[in-house]
């Protein structure tokens, strides 16, 4: 199912598995939980090998995408069920459930059944059920995907706060990059059942390991434009795009492959709509997206190449306009034919 992968978590670390559906991120989570078995490989948790253990003996808690609450049990019974099975003393169960209910603000719902709760409340119960077990590792399977947009934002903030209060590592599966970026200490980007890149959110954003990561992380996606090398040295490379535009990048020439096609990767914020001096090239506007604080402009260069540019919030650009754009080549990335990325040398810290 999944091809060789290896991953090590730090204590109390929050990791997000980010990838499109079918990328294997849920499978990996389920292998860690013990709900699916790997053909080969090992899972260790705090010095203990757990891949041979039953799910309940692994010291992990999971929050399911559809909550998976026991419909005929009250909220209190739902949260206590795992503890009862673990033969935790009755008053200890009571204390833990009450504490978790208080943190999650579901105290007044403890005697209700899941069917009487809203989606957001059920979500809290599911989280509560995971917390009371005081696990070493939380597994969250798309925890916010069933909530409406407003509630999702709120729960995201609460999840971040909650995370400060629990003494455990967290692995969250998500296909939402905003969730991954805001919550995780490190993101594991997955595609096609393999790990594409592991790193802190900003590193993933600024130094994507390959073309897939570059296009999957960041919204809207990075523009990739075929380009040819005109000149270069130890500090920079000068590229020529299909429409003849010449762009200077900060990627050292020596890092690039000698042969094969290259693509220049540009995030929207390094392609600005511009007039007068500093205009790099011209493009025709196809679509304008007004987001309030900024405006996204989808345009085509003279040779038909699509490019995404950014403009200020009060942009007057309309569909069909011919606009000038200024490309900040020094913020660009270069991708080889195999998708591997080449970045400007990291600034010394």
């Amino acid at each position: 199912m999944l091809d060789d992968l290896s991953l090590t978590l730090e204590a109390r670390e929050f990791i997000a598995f980010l990838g499109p559906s079918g990328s294997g991120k849920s499978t990996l989570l389920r292998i860690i939980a013990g709900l699916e078995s790997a053909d080969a490989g090992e899972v260790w948790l705090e010095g203990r090998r757990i891949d041979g253990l039953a799910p309940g003996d692994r010291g992990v808690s999971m929050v399911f995408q559809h909550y998976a609450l026991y419909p005929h049990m009250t909220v209190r019974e739902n949260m206590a069920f795992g503890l009862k099975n673990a033969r935790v003393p009755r008053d200890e169960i009571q204390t833990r459930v009450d504490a978790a209910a208080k943190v999650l603000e579901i105290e007044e719902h403890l005697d209700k059944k899941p069917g009487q709760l809203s989606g957001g409340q059920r979500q809290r119960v599911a989280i509560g059920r995971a917390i009371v077990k005081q696990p070493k590792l939380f597994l969250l399977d798309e925890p916010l995907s069933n909530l409406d947009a407003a509630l999702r934002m709120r729960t995201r903030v609460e999840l971040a706060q909650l995370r400060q209060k629990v003494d455990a590592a967290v692995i969250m599966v998500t296909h939402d990059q905003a969730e991954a970026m805001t919550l995780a200490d490190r993101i594991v980007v997955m595609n096609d059942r393999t790990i594409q890149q592991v790193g802190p959110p900003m590193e993933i954003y600024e130094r994507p390991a390959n073309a897939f990561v570059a296009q999957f992380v960041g919204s809207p996606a990075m523009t990739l434009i075929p380009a040819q090398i005109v000149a270069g040295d130890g500090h920079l490379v000068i590229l020529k795009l299909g429409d003849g535009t010449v762009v200077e990048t900060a990627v050292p020439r020596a890092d690039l492959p000698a042969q094969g096609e290259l693509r220049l990767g540009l995030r929207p914020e390094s392609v600005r709509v511009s007039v007068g001096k500093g205009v790099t090239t011209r493009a025709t506007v196809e679509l304008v997206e007004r987001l309030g604080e900024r405006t996204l402009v989808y345009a085509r260069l003279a040779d038909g190449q699509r490019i995404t540019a950014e403009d200020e919030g009060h942009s007057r650009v309309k569909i069909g306009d011919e606009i000038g754009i200024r490309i900040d080549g020094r913020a660009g990335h270069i991708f080889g034919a195999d998708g591997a990325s080449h970045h400007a040398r990291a600034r010394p810290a």
Partner: protein
Amino acid sequence: MKLYGRRAQLEGFAFVAPFLILYLFLLIYPLLRGIVMSFQRADPFGGGRFVGFGNFTELAADPVFHQALANTFLFTIIIVPPLTVVTLALALALNKPTRSAAWFRGLFFAPSVLSVTIVTLIWRFVLAPDAGLVGEVMQATGGQPIPFLSDPGLVKLAIALTTIWWSFGLPMMLFLAGLQQIPEDVYEAAALDGASKWTTLWRVTLPSLRRTVLLVIMLQTAAQLQLFGQAQLLTSGGPNGASRPVVLFIYETAFVRWQLGYASAAAELLFLLILAVTLVQYFTVNRQDGE
């Protein structure tokens, strides 16, 4: 096309008319006629004579009816609980996507397809004391043949056994359908909660099947209170009425002794009995459900 007013009503009625006519003449009319008849002294050859509650007071004092009533209750009690437990166990065992499970599901459903005539014929071959399967086995092992069909105590057991074997199919399918309704992730949550197989069965699976269990018990109780064919064909209610259920009593009264009014009264009583038992079961379970 827009339909409204009288025309729409007529067209709507035309569509349901074929069913409605059959329903009225074959179900509602006989039902009402039966109620009327239960207050009459009637035979198939002439009009009935109104006797008020005469038939019912007579039934209240009729020892044969009392025996049939007791037999019917006993049949229901020794058939419904084992049938429910066995079919539930079968459904739990066969609720798997494997090929062999599918094959066994078919196998256990198969008896339901047979008519009661075939079923009793098969069980006669099994239970007959002299030449039956059980008899042969007993004799081969040096035991005495067991008189399943002539001992007043064993005969009820024999009919219960036949009925349970015949009735596997529907309850098993209902339980399987109920099991399919339980989402997989609830079981996964139970696994992560460290629940043993036993705990999962008692705390997750069975509570989720509550409504199916009630449905099966209600359907089977109503069905077994009307037990008829097996008793008539296997033993004709004998020996000495030891296996005569109420429906056989009604049949004999109506079509052997031609006392249609008296039989109708017994039928009305059985109808009320089934209604009462079903309602009691329904409300007991709904009360427990709380909200």
